[in-house]
């Protein structure tokens, strides 16, 4: 008998066995369903988190270096205290860099402050106010949905105008047109000249959608005269990033008169740092999460093994008859393996259905995403659980002595 016919026979026999013990099959399948649902949901949550983070981080350009007083990722209190003692980054530094740096395409000073924003009766507190130049559009990569970005003339002095994030636009204007209207930022009036595209990403705060961008001179006048700047440096070519970072670092050390051997009193931040730490954190969350949810799948697998042992014991006589009629060990082994695999696969398919609905619900509170990859992996894992947990019972069945099996009552 060839493998294909054995497989088909095995499927037929398993199906009738599963149907013959409906309640038992349902209960056993339930264990697998729960296991696969938890594992799949964990997978979708991790995938969603990953995706959402990558969307968020894409607003930090890969070809942009960010000069800050402190590192974005502070790993100890000591490091934080040390960075707080560093001198603030001044506008003059940005001007000097502008004149001297050769590998930069744009050098953009950025100042930030949180202020309440108001339009008529509607208001929004804790909005991120950014004071910068027209070149900020280059480093940020923001696209304007309506109107235009700040002009060079406006940034050199000029009128109090602003570009607002999509969330601010929705909050303050709802469906009304925002262009040309005046909003109050900490009681200073700014005319809206542009609305940004929705940027996405997670978090209600700090996202680019909750920003108001104003010309730097206006920012200095209205909010902070001597803020702690961040200087954003967009390099000419991505493959020169390392050289540009080196040039930038040397220039900064020169500007700050640092002697050789003295540590840097500034930090050059970039996208990679976030990616690195994110991969570390996401990897740990993923591993721990999958391990814990995997435990429930393991319990489901033990359930399958248990029920397969019962099934084999119950059908000892049938096994004897089949052997007497000419079934080989392999045939019997395959028959029970297929039965276990079928139970698990059915469980897996039902579980995916449940997980799909649950993912839709989950998306309301957190990013979650069910990819074809997760579906494939879940089905494979459920099949594997069936084969692994069915193996010992099937092996026991296959090795039965036909004489003893036939004698069994």
């Amino acid at each position, binding site marked *: 008998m060839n493998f294909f016919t054995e497989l088909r026979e095995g499927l037929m026999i398993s199906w009738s*066995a599963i149907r013959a013990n409906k309640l038992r099959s349902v209960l056993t399948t339930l264990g697998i369903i729960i296991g696969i649902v938890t594992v799949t949901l964990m997978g979708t949550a991790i995938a969603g988190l990953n995706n959402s983070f990558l969307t968020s981080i894409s607003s930090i350009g890969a070809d942009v270096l960010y000069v800050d007083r402190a590192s974005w990722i502070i790993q100890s209190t000591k490091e934080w205290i040390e960075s707080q003692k560093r001198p603030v980054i001044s506008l003059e530094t940005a001007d000097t860099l502008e004149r001297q740096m050769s590998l930069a395409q744009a050098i953009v000073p950025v100042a930030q402050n949180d202020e309440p924003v108001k339009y008529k009766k509607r208001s929004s507190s804790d909005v991120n106010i950014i004071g910068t130049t027209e070149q900020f559009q280059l480093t940020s990569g923001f696209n304007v949905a309506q109107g235009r970005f700040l002009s060079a003339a406006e940034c050199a002095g000029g009128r109090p105008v602003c570009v607002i994030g999509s969330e601010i636009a929705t909050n303050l204007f709802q469906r009304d047109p925002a262009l040309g209207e005046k909003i109050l930022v900490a009681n200073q009036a700014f005319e809206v000249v542009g609305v940004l595209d929705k940027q996405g990403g997670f978090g209600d705060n700090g996202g680019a959608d909750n920003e108001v961008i104003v010309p730097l001179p206006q920012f200095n006048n209205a909010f902070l005269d001597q803020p702690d700047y961040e200087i954003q440096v967009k390099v000419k070519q991505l493959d020169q990033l390392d050289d540009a970072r080196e040039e930038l670092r040397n220039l900064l050390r020169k500007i700050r008169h640092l002697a050789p051997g003295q540590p840097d009193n500034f930090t050059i931040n970039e996208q990679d740092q976030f990616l690195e730490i994110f991969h570390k954190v996401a990897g740990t969350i993923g591993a721990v999460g999958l391990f814990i949810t995997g435990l429930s799948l393991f319990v489901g697998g033990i359930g399958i093994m248990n029920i397969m042992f019962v099934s084999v014991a119950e059908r000892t006589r*049938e096994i004897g*008859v089949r052997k*007497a*009629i*000419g079934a*080989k060990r*392999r045939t019997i082994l395959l028959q029970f393996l297929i039965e276990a695999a079928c139970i698990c696969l059915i469980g897996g398919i039902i579980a995916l259905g449940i997980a799909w609905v649950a993912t839709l619900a989950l998306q309301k509170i957190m990013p979650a995403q069910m990819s074809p990859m997760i579906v494939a992996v879940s089905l494979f894992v459920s099949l594997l659980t069936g084969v692994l947990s069915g193996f010992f019972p099937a092996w026991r069945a296959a090795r039965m002595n*036909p004489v003893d099996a036939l004698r069994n009552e």
Partner: protein
Amino acid sequence: MSLIRLKEISRRYQMGAETVHALRGVSLEIQRGEYVAIMGPSGSGKSTLMNLVGCLDTPTGGTYELNGSQVSEMNENQLAEIRNREIGFVFQTFNLLPRSDALRNVELPLVYAGISSHERRQIAQDALRSVGLADRVHHKPNELSGGQRQRVAVARALVNKPSILLADEPTGNLDSKTGTEIMALFQQLADKGNTIILVTHEEEVALHAARIIRIRDGLIASDEPVMK
């Protein structure tokens, strides 16, 4: 040449510390087309002999030649093939698969022989017709009477055209009327030239055969033809 040739067959079982000698050197030949009854009280070793002849078990001593091949030296897979090809079993308790209909039960040996589904359906239907159950092919065992069930079992035993039909107390679970019917069926099969080995402890049943072999204490006590 004999279909079955047993030479000095012995079979020991280890029961804890004790060794049980179920067979103590049995030599026996059965020719093609013979109708033989094996008789003996319980514990005499007749079941062990039947299991060995049916290739369900292997002897601890002696040789067994079935249809020209040495069975006593075969491994499990080879034994499974021999059982499939050479032996048709009929059991006291029928041993049909409860969830499968008559046709499917009869098809089973053909499935293990690797015959295509279309062909085996045809063969199985013919086999059921030959035992008088052409109108019961899609009945499950629990929808059939005891006699009908045993007929399905006989059809299953014959479907692969085996060398031996091996029946273990085939009337043990039947009332005397259906028992008689089954014995008449066996007689028909014997008349058609099938080799039948009947294991029983009922004198009346054994008398249907042409030759009676009596086993006692693991040895052949007598082996004589039946006077009719």
